[in-house]
Structures are given as C-alpha cells and as structure tokens.
C-alpha cells in the first residue's frame, strides 16, 4: 500500500468576491477569475519515502499538503493517505498523520510541555503517557530546558521544533511539513535537517514542501517539481539533475549592456544557448570553463570590461528555469 496516492486530483478556488464601492462602477468579473491551484495531479508515494514537493510560491504546494492533511476540500479526483480516503474518512487520515504547518501555530494559552500533552490527549492518549512522550520529544528536539516556559518565550527555530514535536506526539506514520525551514537562520535550518533525517531513518514517510533547491537535493529521496498546480517532473534529485539542459551555465557580468556579446557567444562551438539580461550574459555550454577566454574576448571586442564570472554546474535550479522559464525564488 502506498503512503500517499492521488488520482486526477484537482482543486479550484472560487473567484474572490468583487466588492462594489459607492461611486465606482463594479468591474466586470474576468472570465476565468477562479484559481486552479491543483490540476489533474497523479502522485504515488511509497511508505518510508522522503518525498519533496518543489515549486515557487503559489505553485500549489500548500494546497496539495492542505488536501492531504484533510484541511482543503477536493474539487475533483481522489486522494488517499495510509489507505484512507481524505474526503470520506478524514478522521482516519488525521489519526495517521502529523502536520508541521508553514507558520508555527502553537497553543499560546498553554506552556511548551502542555502543548504536547494536550495534543496527545486529542488522539486518545492518556495524560501520564502523553507527559512521558512529551518530555522525551522535547529532549530530542533540544528544547527540554524550555519545558515549562510560555510558547512566546521560544525563538522561531525553537517554535518550529515544538511544532515537529507536536506533530510526532501521537506517533504518526506519515509526517507532512509545509516549508518548514522558511524564516530560520542557517544554523537552525541545519539542525532541522538533522531531525528530519532521523525521523526518516525511523521508517516514517516524510512529505515536505520547499522552494529551496539545496534542501530538496540534500534531503529528499524523490522530488515532484510542480508549478501552477501541474506536475512538471518527478524523480530522484540525481536523475532530475541529469535532465537539466545545456550542462554548465556560465554567467559573465560586463560593465555595460551584454547583448553586444550574445551573438558571438551563440556562434561558439558547444554553446546550446546564450542570452543577455542587462549586463549579464548567460551561456549554457557543454565546454563549461573552457569557454571563458572566448567570452571575455567577445565582450572586449565591443569595449566591455568583465566585472564578474560565475560557473554553475547543472542543477535543479537550471532544470527549473528550463521547465518553467522562471527562477524558483
């Protein structure tokens, strides 16, 4: 049985209501004002996978996680989590999942440990057992010293770890994390990665959305790249990277408009594409660094001086640009 399965999943949000204002004629509603957040999505995630959903803001990541965690209604299609249908049996789905939200939403009327104890009792766990688990989880998350503190006394990273502890308090099979590292400093992010790896090693299925390439690359066993609600690519990070076009990306920054050098660059051997954006010349090439002297010459021939040179190996980022025509972040 798959941990997650979706069939022709579709979610459409109705068009936002247009308010009439006195003296201003109501604007005519655009013909397709409704928002298609998820469009005919078929996914299957096996048990024990570390699965990543990668896409820019507004790609449909949060909607997808919302559907799988029973918080967003499906417009069409079906979705199953741990074998339970999210529409017809949401309570069963909820008993099997842990959810870490995009922004920490702890119960601020309760202390840190109470957050865990009460949450566990919502899943039918007795208070004594809940307290025992809560203490253990806080220790593992490294915030045991804050056990009796108010939630407001925790830093952003600590609150995020409290959210992970809460999501684990009923020992779920599948853990969902919606952009868990947004807003964390680099150190907090690294320690979160470690925690996530540990959860995965324990045999849990992890589904994480992110718009950080590096994070997806480092953590996920398989990645779904989505944009505008559609699945664009699905594979392991390594295979996806081989699909990135043009091999190495060479970016040369001149002291003025780079377009004068673009034509010359396109004519060079091994160059698959060259494009100028302001002072930056972007060249995809199989020859990588070998090309640099010729590119410098091409600029100097028109009186341009080189300010900066960058080489990027084929990456998820370059793949994403080629799939969607835009950058991730």
């Amino acid at each position: 049985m798959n941990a997650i399965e979706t069939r022709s999943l579709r979610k459409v949000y109705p068009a936002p209501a247009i308010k009439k204002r006195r003296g201003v004629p109501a604007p005519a509603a655009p013909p397709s004002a409704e928002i298609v957040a998820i469009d005919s999505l078929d996914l299957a995630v096996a048990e024990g996978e570390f699965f990543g959903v990668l896409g820019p803001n507004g790609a449909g990541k949060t909607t997808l996680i919302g559907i799988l965690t029973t918080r967003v209604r499906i417009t069409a299609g079906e979705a199953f989590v741990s074998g339970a249908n999210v529409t017809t049996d949401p309570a069963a789905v909820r008993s099997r999942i842990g959810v870490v939200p995009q922004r920490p939403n702890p119960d601020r009327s309760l202390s840190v440990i109470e957050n865990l104890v009460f949450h566990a009792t919502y899943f039918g766990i007795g208070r004594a057992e809940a307290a025992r688990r809560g203490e253990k989880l806080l220790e593992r998350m490294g915030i045991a010293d804050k056990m009796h503190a108010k939630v407001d006394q925790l830093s952003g990273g600590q609150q995020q770890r409290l959210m992970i502890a809460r999501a684990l308090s009923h020992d779920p099979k599948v853990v969902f994390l919606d952009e868990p590292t947004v807003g964390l400093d680099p150190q907090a992010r690294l320690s979160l990665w470690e925690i996530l790896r540990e959860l995965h090693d324990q045999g849990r299925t992890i589904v994480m959305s992110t718009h950080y390439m590096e994070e997806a690359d480092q953590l996920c066993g398989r990645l779904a790249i989505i944009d505008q609600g559609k699945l664009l690519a699905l594979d392991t990070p390594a295979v996806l990277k081989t699909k990135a076009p043009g091999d190495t990306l060479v970016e040369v920054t001149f002291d003025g408009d780079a377009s004068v050098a673009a034509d010359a660059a396109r004519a060079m051997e091994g160059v698959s594409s060259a494009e100028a954006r302001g002072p930056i010349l972007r060249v995809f090439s199989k020859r990588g660094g070998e090309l640099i002297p010729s590119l410098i010459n091409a600029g100097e021939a028109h009186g341009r001086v080189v300010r900066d040179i960058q080489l990027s190996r084929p990456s998820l980022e370059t793949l994403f640009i080629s799939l969607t025509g835009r950058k991730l972040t």
Partner: protein
Amino acid sequence: MTVEPLAPVAPSRVFIAILLRDLTVARRELPYFLVRTALQPILFVTVFGFLLPRMGLIPHGYSTTMLPGVVALSLALSAIQSVALPMMQDFGFTKEIEDRLLSPVPIHLVAAEKVVGGVLQGIVAALFVLPVARLIMGPIPGLSFRNLPLLLAVTILGGTAFSAMGLYLGTGIAPQQIGLMFSVIVAPMIMFGCTYYPWAGLSHVPVMKWLVLINPLVYVSEGMRAALTPGIPHMPLLMILAALVLLTALFMFLGLRAFDKRAMS
C-alpha cells in the same frame, strides 16, 4: 513495512480532552473572565438596584424585576463572548485551533465542544452574578429557587442558544468588525432584551412588545423571571421554551455552517 491497524479513538474521549483544554485555560483566566462578563451587569445592579432606589427615584420592588434579567444577561453575554472571541482570534490571526482540527474526529465535534465550553462559562458567570447582585441590592422579595427544573432548562437552553450564536458571530464576522458586533448587535440586544423590564410591561408600547420578539435575549430574561420570580407576570412558559429550542437549533445550524467554511477551504 505494513501499517498496523490503528485502534480508532472514541470521539467522546477526544471531545472531553478538547473540553479539558478549554476549561484549563478558562480556569487560569477566571479573574479576567469574571471582570469581562460580570462587570457590566454588576454596574447596572449598583445603579438601578442600589443607588436609584436609595434616592427614591425607583421603587424598592424593582429589584425583583431586575434580578432575573441581570442573571439572564450574564449568562447570555458570557456564553456568546466565550465562543465568539476565541473563534475570531483562532481563525483570524493565530490559527491556534488547527491542532484541534487535526484531531481524529469530525470537525463538527470541535465546534460542538466550543459551544459546550461556552455554556459552562455562561453558567459560571450567572452563578457569580446572582449572589453579588443579592449582596448589593439587599433582600429581594419574591425570589425563589423552588422551580429548579425550569431554572436548569432555561439556563442550559439559553446558554446553548447564545453559545451557538457566539459560534456563528465568531466564525462569520471578520475580526476587524468586532467593535461593530458589540455596538450594533450586542448593545441593542441588551437594551431591548427585557432584562431591565418585564415583557408584560411593554403592553404600554404594543409595537415594541412584538418587535422585541426577534431578540433572543427576551426569552432568556423571561425564562429566568418565570423560574426565579414566579410572582411577577412573565411570558407563557411554552412560548419561552419553544423559542429557546428553535433559536438553539437555528444558531447551531448557522454556526456549524460558518465554522465549516472557516475550518476547510
């Protein structure tokens, strides 16, 4: 790896766990809660039940008319606020309620728990105001606790109706409009809720007598009058109880529908 069959959790157990959470928080905030909900009725009692009678501007017997209204007002106000205010916050800004929406029960049970919690807090407020009012106003002629079943029925039905109304307002109104809710809905409801005068007295202004019937508070006030001061003329019992049942059903329906809209997108 296979998923071991999970023992389904009894919804009643989850319901009690969520209710315990609310009661724990309410107990900690009890002083603020009592000030918030009981201060207004107590101020009215002080002016109309103590000062004005002393000055001879109001006859002494007025306290008998006013006491049931004040108890009804405390019950209704605290029930409505105990649900509406946290709902506005939870859904509007903090999203705190999400951890309960992820519990393994139908989400209507989470809403129903809020209503039950509101009823309990309403009862606490009414039980607090009753002796304080008696203390301020002195002996109240005609006050009786003999009709306990009716008192319980009015308290529970009235508390539920207003708690459910709190659910509807708290989930249906934008947080920015909270001031508007109090000035446009709550304040007129208090003034025209037969709290400070009996419904029968409105016979002098027949239009008002029929107009106030749209006000839910009228039935709680008159119900309290029927239960606590049976000697004073009050609305027929059947009318009171039928109206309270209908209002409870109506606000539960509207409240759950509005809750659904906010809880799931």
